[in-house]
């Protein structure tokens, strides 16, 4: 297959990196589809940055293979990285140079056309007016945006952003989200690593969840959410303990708990894994049983599983397995 026709912009097979006894990246098989916003999601210390560093040739893997934009890395690293823009950890600059001069320094290491992209990149991230100020006068958010401008000098097919929301205020986060979606709309692929589940869910189309160096789930966010156990949230009157016992007796209920303590009437019911239609049928059945038992039901709803719940479910299950 021609490198440019590859449907996945990042492909890794069995990628492994060890630091002494510790395995930071453990046999990772990753596929990032072209033209998507892809989240590499995991808690701090899960090996996200190490994987990115290997992809970019900053550190060598101990085992496995990888391809960027269809090209084998490290064999064709230069060709692959020519169309990749990246921010690894926080972006660094020479503080005594202006924003424009910092971009000139990096543009000099890229193709000649990169120099001509500097004004456009600065305008795109909203720094054109401050381009001739020294970077030491920039705020954290401005440095982050200048980092994105620097990544855009490659006219990238793939942007790799490591924790891009770090250090940004709410307005900056909103801007960054919009910028990422705009870049994807142009046909570029954005791979971002983050420990912020909410951010990934808001920005990304697909995600890989990583825990202790291993990918534990991977795919479109909607599919991952669908894999989560459905839940029902309800508010009832009467004896809560009796209601909980009644709900727990249903064969499709995995767990029923009061969500805000023993005196509350709020209850959260976790169902056994089921598709949307089956979950709706079980929820209706539960409601009918409660009414038939004379329980007053003030509120009842099937909750949409969030990526956060799926993430916690997967990682806590892994924790249980590890203990077992």
């Amino acid at each position, binding site marked *: 297959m021609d490198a440019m026709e590859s449907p996945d912009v990042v492909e890794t097979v069995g990628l492994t990196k060890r630091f002494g006894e510790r395995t930071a990246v453990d046999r990772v098989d990753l596929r990032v589809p072209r033209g998507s916003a892809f989240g590499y999601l995991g808690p701090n210390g899960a090996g996200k940055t190490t994987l990115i*560093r290997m992809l*970019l*040739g*900053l*550190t060598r893997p101990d085992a496995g293979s990888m391809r960027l934009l269809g090209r084998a890395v490290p064999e064709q*690293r*230069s*060709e*692959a*990285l*020519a169309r*990749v823009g*990246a921010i*690894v950890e926080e*972006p*660094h*600059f*020479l*503080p*005594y*140079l202006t924003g424009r*001069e910092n971009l*000139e*320094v*990096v*543009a*000099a*290491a*890229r193709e*000649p056309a990169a*120099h001509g992209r500097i004004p456009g990149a600065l305008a795109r991230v909203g720094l054109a007016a401050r381009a001739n100020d020294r970077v030491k006068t920039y705020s954290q958010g401005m440095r982050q945006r200048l980092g994105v401008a*620097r990544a855009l000098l*490659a006219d990238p097919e793939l942007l790799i952003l490591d924790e891009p929301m770090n250090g940004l205020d709410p307005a900056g986060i909103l801007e960054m989200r919009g910028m990422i979606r705009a870049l994807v709309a142009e046909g570029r692929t954005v791979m971002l690593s983050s420990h912020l589940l909410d951010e990934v869910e808001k920005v990304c189309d697909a995600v890989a969840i990583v825990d202790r160096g291993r990918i534990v789930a991977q795919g479109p966010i909607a599919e991952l959410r669908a894999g989560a156990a459905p839940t029902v949230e309800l508010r009832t009157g009467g004896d809560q303990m009796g209601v909980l016992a009644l709900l727990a007796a249903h064969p499709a209920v995995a767990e029923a708990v009061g969500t805000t303590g023993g005196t509350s009437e709020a209850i959260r019911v976790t169902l056994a894994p089921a598709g949307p239609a089956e979950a709706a049928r079980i929820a209706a059945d539960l409601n009918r049983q409660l009414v038939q038992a004379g329980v007053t039901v003030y509120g009842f709803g099937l909750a949409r599983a969030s990526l956060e719940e799926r993430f916690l479910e997967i990682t806590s299950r892994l924790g249980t397995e590890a203990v077992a």
Partner: protein
Amino acid sequence: MSWRLIKAELLKLRRRRGLLAWTLLIPLGVVGLQYGVLAALHAGDPAAHGPAGGVANLATTLVLLGTLAPVAAVLVGATAGAGDVEAGLFRDLVVTGRSRRALFAARVPGGLALLLPVVAAAWLLAVGASFAFAGGSATPGLGAVLLGGGWALLAAALAYVVALGLASLSGSRAMTVGVMLAWLFPVSNILLSISQLGGWRRAIMQPALERIAPSQLVPGGGGSAVTMSLAVTLLVLALWSIVPLVAGAWRTQTRDA
């Protein structure tokens, strides 16, 4: 070799105000100070102090420049070698896909493009002063001027590549400056004074440089305690140029960015 990378290296160095100030001040300041003092002394008491210019005083300037231009070279070389790593910029340059060897190679002409014009300017200032304040003293010939300038440039360039290599190897500007200044001044001189080291002292850079100092200005190589043939001299200078560059290039190639 990419002109754009070399220009970028020069930009990074010349825009560091402190570095630029010291790079200008050390060679130019020393020459200016020397001739200023000599001219003032001569003006105050012409009977006791001869003219400030002339070939004899130019020879003194050359020795001074050969000693102090390497100090400026160390500052520039240490910054060129370790600046990107210390600022965290090296990583961002590596992820462009440009070869690390090319990134390192650009530092050599990039730094020399800042350093050598300053050393040349200092030498030209000295030559100008040696004519302007010559009075009745003998003035230097063209050969002495050219050879003296070439020798000062060589001394600075050698110190630059050693500092560049060491800084690229260590990734630390401060450590490089400290080690290099210690080497250039007390350590080299102490080693040269240890006669038990015998011929091994030829491996030190300073005697090799003194060996090829222009005889019109510094007769007898400045009276160095170590003698060596021209072939050995060239070999020593070549090794002092090549080994640091190879070590620096190797570390730049293998460093985790």
